[in-house]
């Protein structure tokens, strides 16, 4: 049994369909990267898994049970945690307060203020700063730290690299092995294919809401990925 199983998922924004009959599975302990261009439906997929959006058809199974009737705030105690697109750091709270809000439900596990600070020195340095005063990279690192504070079994990372300097992206991705080393399963959504290939055990490429390529990074050639990514 996979930890997460997405079966025949359709998601709409009003009349616009973002995802078409998508199938996807993530096994416990693996890191899956979902890649694709803008508008491929990657962020929509994560929002639907986290419960911020409702599917119009299909189902999502987590630990074998359907998530459809579960509101988003009840998915966190089950171990699903999303670092949302745009980071969504609480602007009027300090970095440390942001992390504490992340730990609000007190799910037990290896992650706490201290271990997050160790994994993200960038966050530790800014712990007393207000969210509104953080740079993009600091926000991203704090947002991942905040998501970890709930000690997720499945961590969903949305567009970690978006709008960040390569050196900062590097720093943040350096923490991924620590996260997976603690037993957390990671589903990462990326436009930056190189970063995704580096951390992922398996890659799934979306194009306009459908899967066009899937496999471990070692089995895929650069040309195959480029063709799938751009739909050529």
């Amino acid at each position, binding site marked *: 049994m996979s930890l997460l199983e997405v079966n025949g998922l359709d998601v709409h924004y009003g009349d616009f369909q973002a995802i078409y009959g998508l199938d996807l599975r993530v096994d416990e302990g693996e890191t899956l990267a979902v890649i694709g261009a803008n508008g491929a439906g990657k962020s929509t997929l994560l929002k639907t898994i986290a419960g911020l959006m409702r599917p119009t058809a299909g189902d999502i199974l987590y630990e074998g049970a359907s998530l459809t009737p579960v509101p988003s705030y009840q998915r966190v105690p089950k171990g699903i945690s999303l670092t949302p697109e745009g980071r969504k750091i609480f*602007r009027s709270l300090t970095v440390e307060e942001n992390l504490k809000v992340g730990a609000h439900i007190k799910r037990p596990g290896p992650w706490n203020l201290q271990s997050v600070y160790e994994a993200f020195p960038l966050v530790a340095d800014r712990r007393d700063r207000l969210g509104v005063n953080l740079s993009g990279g600091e926000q991203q690192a704090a947002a991942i730290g905040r998501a970890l504070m709930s000690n997720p079994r499945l961590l969903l990372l949305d567009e970690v690299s978006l709008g960040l300097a390569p050196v900062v992206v590097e720093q943040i991705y350096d923490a991924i092995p620590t996260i997976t080393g603690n037993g957390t399963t990671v589903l990462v959504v990326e436009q930056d294919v190189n970063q995704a290939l580096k951390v992922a055990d398996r890659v799934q490429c979306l194009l306009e809401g459908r899967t066009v390529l899937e496999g471990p990074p070692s089995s895929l050639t650069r040309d195959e990925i480029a063709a799938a990514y751009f739909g050529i």
Partner: protein
Amino acid sequence: MQWLNAIIQGILLGGLYALLAAGLSLMFGVMRIVNLAHGVLAMLAAYLGVVFVNNLGLPWFLALVIVVPIMAAVGYVLQWGLFNRAISKGGLAPLLVAFGLAVVLTQLLQQIFSADSRSIQIGALGTSSIQVSDTIYIGWFPLMTFVVGVLVIAGVQVFLNRAPLGRAMRATSDDPETVNLMGINNRQVYALATALAMATVGLAGMFIGTKTQFIPTYGDLVLIFAFEAVIIGGLGSLWGTLVGGIILGVAQTVGSQINPSYGLLVGNLVFLAILAFRPQGLLPKAVTT
């Protein structure tokens, strides 16, 4: 000396206004709801005080201890039953719902308690005072009101700053969707925030209902005082609300000192002046989203 007395009495009155305004400020701060039913809810608390103290003969302080949790429960139910539904409709809906609630509740109070003016009896404590100098007396009850007002403002502020639930309220105020990703139900946070706000309204209603004669429509005036205190102090800042309440109180008593009929007028003029020259208030919230 009489001017000094006016200022002292004004500061004490300001404590009452701050107490009145704390709940309004809190609900706006957490949910961006302008609760137009705030004043009449304070009247509801005052009438509960009349029932428990005047009719049932309970001691004043015991009535206070009963009214506050009743009002908190009223707030919790109101939020789940009315405001949460209105918020999901967005825009002006919560404002209109609050307005409708104010109208209905005022009529209901008039139906039950009539339009005769009432006041909660407190006995000797209501009139006893400390003599500070030949001409200055400080009443025990106004002093107690002031102290409670300051303690409530400070208590709510410390709660918001330090308590996990207070932190969750601030986070929810920043971004009500994202808190759900932390396992926090924003609607439940709203309900608890309104319960807390209504607990302070319970206190305020007991104090104002003891201080003055009131009728159901007196809630309109209460709403205006609370609103003025919040605006003068700066939206979303509780310490600002305390400062705003004190400024409003002093303006009213000094105005009354000039001419007994000028009290409300001067208070409103000071409010207008602040609105014209410093519309963000004296101590606005540092971060606005």
